[in-house]
């Protein structure tokens, strides 16, 4: 295991792509690739809007601010070639093939005389005049219009010193676009960027009436990290201190305290190493929940220490370990069996959690069995203090007195069944937006910036796939036609498709034909040449320069497209060609889906709904898997305890779980996937309680002490997460808090029911 960890851990890769959690990840490769590129564009972009009372002062300070920002390696200079010079060079000579939809219509409807008049007016009423090259290559201005359509449609204006700016409430705000050099989730990068932005803002704030608006995923991740760090430092530190104080109070040995964490650390490392070996990259979700489940391993140490201390001077490491082995091994086996059953669900996330937690737990127990008998061979100097002995035993007695009247298996199972059925009707929520609520100030500022920039692309997009670039463009044209008809209604505000940069080869051919008919054959060019007194040679040049018979192809544009993040996305590999049509809100997803029906290779992708769908999948399967795991464990334990005995061992954690969910539901919380995931922890820990009580013969004191300590440490480490402001973490924490307390309280039912049966 150690070797495996040394080999695997240095190359541990974490995966945060939500698509990797889907069961049919392979069929979504295209979507994943498009999404990754899109989200990279989106995630890494940071936009600052800087405003001040005095424009002249602002203009002077702007380069200073830019310099200060560019000094940070966390930002890359955003050099978007908004002039579109690269595309213009590619288009040159293809005037007749590259027509905007408006020009396609004009050529079809206007008379030659009208076309001629328009062309002449354009050429003669331009201050500064038209260059010879423009006249020869673009006599009607059609290519200029096509070029214009490839420019980003924003509200950004340029001032006399070439600074881009927008106007908000009649006030000028200079636009500073930046690109992060890495992911906004990278904490080190976040800190660098935060410092650089603070410095830049500091410089700007010297101006009177200085105002800074900002937008970008960075600010959300910064807020998230800040909140997490704050919670870590309060909740995390608080709970760690609580656990340390508790263990020191009971065992009165710092060495034991350190020893308690050794199996846990070994388990997490081994789990990570195995997952890394098996899956290549460990998903963040699996890491979080998997590591939480390995957290159960701290209980192994607690049981060992408690048993040793309970025996005091009579402790013999060999005997003690032998006595502890059955409940520990059973506890481990049930947890591993339970967790491994998740693999059946076929969800990559659950499979990773199962592997990580199982290998982690096995390693942790192996560490306990190999390490502890050697290090703790000597009998402890002190046994359990008398006050603690009395407390534990008295608590145990009153606990049983309370439970005895209700220890009626049939009734309890009936309650379990009824509540389980009722819970299927409890309100549930799978909305990612409800689970992570970003700060309203950030959301408001983002909306303001987006509105002012005029860039309102929504998260939803239309994915187009095709076997060749020509077919891709054709499919985009078909989709665009359908979307265009929607634009007239309220179902769609706007869209941006690749065909505004390049029509399909078929459309280019049609354009050339209509140019030939309406412009060349109808004599428009010839008459224009005559009216302008164009030389004969120049006229011939014009005919040639406007009618290149070879279509412009998408691969020719590819390198330019990658340099222009404002243009629609295009990707190509051996498997196919992909593009995304971005949509502008407000939009009606249902109407768009309806409109796109029947188009091959065209689908509407809604990342938000897909994430919600994923959470729903995971919530439902987690619930199903829990039932399955309980059944599986009960079956597994039947050999040792008989049918009813096995059922009574699994009953307390099961009851605790449904009670916890019922309580949470009654409190008005909609159930989500994180409530369910917490129940996995309740199962893992709760079943240990019942097993130990069931296996405990003479070691009542040690067992009860260990279970009590386990409950307290679990409540301190996981239960306090209920205080978190992040909805997902709060849900998880609250469920563990209520579930574990109930599991502890109900655990003796496993023994009481047995006794009832025996007597």
């Amino acid at each position, binding site marked *: 295991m150690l070797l495996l960890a040394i080999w695997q851990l240095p190359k541990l890769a974490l995966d945060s792509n939500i698509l990797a959690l889907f069961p049919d990840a392979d069929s979504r490769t295209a979507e994943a690739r498009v999404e990754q590129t899109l989200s990279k564009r989106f995630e890494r972009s940071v936009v600052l809007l800087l405003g001040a009372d005095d424009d002249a002062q602002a203009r002077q300070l702007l380069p200073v601010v830019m310099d200060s920002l560019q000094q940070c390696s966390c930002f890359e200079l955003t050099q978007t070639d908004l002039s579109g010079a690269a595309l213009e060079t590619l288009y040159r000579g293809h005037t007749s093939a590259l027509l905007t939809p408006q020009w396609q219509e004009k050529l079809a409807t206007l008379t030659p005389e009208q076309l001629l008049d328009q062309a002449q007016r354009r050429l003669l*009423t331009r*201050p500064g005049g038209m*260059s010879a090259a423009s006249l020869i290559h673009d006599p009607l201005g059609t290519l200029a219009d096509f070029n214009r359509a490839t*420019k*980003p449609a924003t509200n950004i204006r*340029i*001032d006399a010193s070439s600074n881009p700016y927008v106007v908000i409430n009649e006030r000028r705000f200079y636009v500073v676009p930046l690109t992060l050099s890495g992911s906004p989730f990278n904490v080190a990068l976040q800190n660098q960027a935060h410092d650089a932005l603070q410095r830049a803002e500091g410089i700007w704030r010297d101006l009177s009436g200085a105002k800074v608006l900002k937008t970008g995923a960075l600010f959300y991740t910064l807020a998230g990290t800040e909140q997490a760090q704050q919670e870590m430092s309060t909740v995390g530190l608080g709970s760690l201190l609580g656990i340390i104080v508790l263990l020191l109070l009971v065992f009165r040995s710092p060495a034991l305290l350190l020893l308690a964490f050794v199996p846990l650390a070994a388990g997490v490392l081994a789990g990570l190493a195995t997952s890394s070996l098996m899956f290549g990259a460990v998903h963040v979700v699996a890491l979080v929940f998997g590591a939480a489940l390995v957290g159960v391993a701290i209980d192994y140490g607690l049981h060992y220490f408690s048993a040793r201390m309970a025996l005091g001077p009579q402790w013999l490491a060999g005997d003690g370990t032998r006595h502890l082995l059955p409940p520990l091994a059973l506890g481990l086996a049930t947890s591993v069996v339970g967790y491994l059953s998740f693999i059946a669900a076929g969800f990559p996330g659950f499979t990773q959690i199962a592997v990580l937690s199982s290998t982690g737990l096995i390693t942790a127990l192996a560490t306990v069995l190999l390490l502890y008998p050697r290090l703790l061979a000597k009998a402890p100097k002190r046994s359990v203090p008398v006050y603690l002995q009395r407390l534990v035993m008295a608590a145990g007695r009153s606990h049983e007195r309370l439970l005895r009247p209700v220890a009626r298996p049939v009734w309890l199972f009936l309650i379990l069944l009824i509540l389980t059925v009722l819970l299927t009707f409890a309100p549930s929520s799978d909305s990612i937006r409800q689970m992570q609520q970003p700060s309203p100030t950030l959301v408001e500022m983002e909306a303001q910036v987006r509105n002012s920039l005029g860039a309102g692309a929504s998260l939803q997009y239309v994915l187009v796939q095709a076997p060749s670039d020509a077919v891709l463009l054709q499919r985009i044209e078909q989709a665009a036609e359908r979307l265009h008809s929607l634009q007239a209604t309220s179902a769609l505000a706007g869209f941006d498709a690749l065909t505004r940069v390049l029509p399909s080869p078929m459309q280019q051919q049609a354009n050339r034909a209509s140019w030939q008919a309406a412009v060349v054959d109808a004599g428009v060019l010839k008459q224009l040449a005559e009216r302008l007194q164009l030389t004969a040679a*120049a006229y011939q040049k014009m005919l040639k320069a406007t009618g290149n018979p070879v279509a412009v192809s998408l691969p020719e544009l590819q390198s330019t497209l990658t340099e222009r993040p404002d243009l629609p996305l295009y990707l190509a590999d051996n498997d196919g060609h992909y593009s995304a049509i971005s949509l502008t809100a407000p939009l009606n997803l249902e109407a768009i889906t309806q409109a796109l029906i029947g188009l091959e290779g065209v689908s509407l992708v809604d990342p938000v709904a897909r994430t919600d769908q994923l959470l729903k999948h995971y919530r439902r399967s987690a619930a199903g898997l829990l039932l399955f795991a309980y059944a599986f464990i009960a079956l597994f334990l039947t050999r040792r305890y008989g049918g009813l005995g096995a059922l009574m061992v699994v009953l307390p954690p099961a009851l605790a779980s449904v009670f916890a969910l019922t309580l949470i539901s009654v409190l008005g919380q909609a159930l989500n996937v994180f409530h369910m995931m917490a129940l996995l922890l309740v199962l893992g820990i709760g079943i240990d309680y019942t097993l130990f009580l069931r296996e405990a013969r003479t070691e009542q004191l040690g067992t009860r002490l260990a279970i009590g300590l386990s409950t307290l440490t679990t409540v301190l480490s996981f239960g306090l997460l209920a205080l978190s402001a992040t909805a997902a973490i709060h849900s998880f924490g609250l469920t563990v808090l209520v579930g574990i307390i109930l599991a502890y309280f109900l655990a003796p039912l496993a023994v009481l029911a047995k006794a009832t049966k025996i007597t």
Partner: protein
Amino acid sequence: MTIRTLAGGNAGMSTCLKANAKQALKVLGLWLCVCSSISVAQGVFDYPIKTGSAEAQTLESIAAELRQNLPLNAAVEQQKYLAVLREPMISTGALNLTADGDLHWRIAEPFAVSYSMTAGELTRTMDGAVEIISASAEPALYGFFQLFSRLFELSLQELNNYFAVYLLPQADTDERWVIGLTPEDTRLKKVLAHIIVQGKDGAIEQVTLTEPGDDYTLLKFSNIPADKVK
């Protein structure tokens, strides 16, 4: 000036632009009258202005005179000479420059189209419809208006950001001044070889924008209201 004489001047002028000014005068005596002003103006590029020099002060006094005459109202004629055209493209209209630097250019002939550059925003009015022209959509046109509003300010400091500035010493008899500009900005160099601005009595009379190659644009301003002339 009729189109014919202008057309006749075209060939001569391009030769003038290429050749040494003095030689051109000797060879093309016939077009002396047409060429003389341009060839004299060409000489301007022998006299660069250094900051803080006497010439810089002269430029400043010319600029001060120009500013005094604001708001400016003038008739404007644009003649576009292209090598591919046998005759220039001509348009006429009116130009109005306010003291705030807003520029209105109303073309009347051969078609009615007007442009306004107000607080950095360029608009075009055609058939009653107003259209905002952004710098990114029509960089050449937008750039022309930006340059033009700056030209009328004649601020040496501003012009020096983009151009090397020249000023022809004034002859005793002729009160005309000639200012030359050659672009130093690489983007400008692609579209512009040089600019010659000629004027008199606090008013710009003629601006010649020469492109790399043989093509150039001549802008003539006249009819400046009498009360505005010193």
